[in-house]
């Protein structure tokens, strides 16, 4: 039994089948990159995992416990209530950062934790006080190298800095798996490096399990334990970076890698 097991995920928008029978496994501490050309369902897959879309079929389990199946989408089903509990397995970093503009960098990170601890206090569970919340949040801000920007508002930060704050924020509830949807594609080329570096550090120093949708092939090859090529909503290839990049068995993947190599050489 793998840590994360994704089984036969199906998803359609109306008549358009976007995900077809998507399955893969991921072990604790592993980094998975999802690659594929535009419109092949990468974002949709991440959104399904994060309960932002309802799936039509399939299931997801963590440590053998089912955390998503098709019944989760049905609002009348009691399982739907579990979404808020199961969500805590994931953190999600968006392409467009989506920081809350009215809060400082530090407050952006603190807010989710504050709200959760308030709930815990109400329920009579042990909880963190404001000072502890601030300390933990500041610690995360340090991890992404932005301690000195703690009092700055998002509009005062560069895109790369905003994304690093967003990464820290996604980690504040201590998710099991950190998901990224093209974390650098909204950034100017000269800013992608700092974000990729932070992600690399999270892997090297903290062994965080990650799923990264990316168009940065070199980065994917370097950081990943597993690579998944999604083509027309199907898993075309799934394996180690060298299996997928160097000798892909699948024709779609061959083509995709070849066209990428061509683009790089031009």
């Amino acid at each position, binding site marked *: 039994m793998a840590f994360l097991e994704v089984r036969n995920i199906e998803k359609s928008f109306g008549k358009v089948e976007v995900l077809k029978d998507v399955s893969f496994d991921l072990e604790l501490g592993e980094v998975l990159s999802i690659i594929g050309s535009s419109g092949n369902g990468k974002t949709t897959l991440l959104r399904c995992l*994060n*309960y*932002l879309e309802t799936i039509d079929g399939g299931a997801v389990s963590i440590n053998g416990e089912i955390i998503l199946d098709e019944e989760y989408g049905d609002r009348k089903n009691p399982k739907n209530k579990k979404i*808020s509990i199961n*969500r*805590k397995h*994931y*953190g*999600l970093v*968006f392409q*467009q950062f*989506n*920081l*809350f*503009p*009215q809060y400082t960098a530090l407050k952006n990170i603190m*807010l*989710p934790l504050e*709200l*959760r601890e308030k709930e815990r206090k109400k329920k009579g569970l042990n909880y963190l006080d404001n000072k502890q919340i601030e300390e933990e949040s500041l610690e995360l801000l340090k991890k992404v190298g932005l301690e000195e920007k703690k009092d700055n*508002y*998002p*509009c005062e930060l560069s895109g790369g800095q905003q994304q690093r704050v967003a990464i820290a*924020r*996604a980690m*504040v*509830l201590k998710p099991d798996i950190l998901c990224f949807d093209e974390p650098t594609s909204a950034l100017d080329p000269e800013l992608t490096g700092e974000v990729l570096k932070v992600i690399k550090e999270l892997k090297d120093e903290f062994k965080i399990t990650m799923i990264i949708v990316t168009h940065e092939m070199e980065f994917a090859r370097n950081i990943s334990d597993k690579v998944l090529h999604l083509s027309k909503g199907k898993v075309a290839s799934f394996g180690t970076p060298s299996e997928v990049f160097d000798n892909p068995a699948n024709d779609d993947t061959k083509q995709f890698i070849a066209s990428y190599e061509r683009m790089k050489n031009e």
Partner: protein
Amino acid sequence: MFWKITSELLNGFTISIFLFTFTLLFSLPLGLLMCFCTMSKVKPLSIFMKFIVLILRGTPLMLQIFVIFYVPGLLFDFQWPMINTGWEWFDSSFSSRFIAALVAFSVNYAAYFSEIYRGGIQSIPQGQYEAAEVLGMNKRQIFFKVILLQVIKRIIPPMSNEVITLIKDTSLANVIAVTELMFVANLKLKTGLIWPIFYAGLFYFIFNGIVTIILSKVEKKLSYFKV
């Protein structure tokens, strides 16, 4: 003579300010309620409310004042209540006119406000809701902790326009003999005195200025972030 007329105009002005203040007090929350109705997933409710808003915005406020003051009495024998406040400038026979005007203003402005609220809420990107949602917030927390202040910031400029317009619109209440500032000035005009109407204009102008300054202060307060 000057002081006597000043005091008469001031009495009228007090009524104008009353009308202005209470209209805002009622129409701001009522507008939010109407906005939630128009955005409701319950189709009949949303269609009904959209229709009401369309009518309120599509017909003259003066017409609505007449309708609200006269029609209930003519059709249902309903009289707007007379309240005894004990204030001499606000006698009980007058209060029914004032209340009718207040109802007309409140409902009319609520319709305008509801559209502004709706525009504001819909202009917040979906990504804000989704980011909050994946961070474990529930609907109430998302609205109050994440969305509301952004909406307020976005709607302050169009709201300011409406509020300024409302100051001037209070003069419409004179059509059902609410003795607000315009009504008093008009009485003087009918006796052949011209200057009080200019004097009244000055009252409106100064009040406008004060409100404008307050609103731009609020706008400035929220300028520390961008949406």
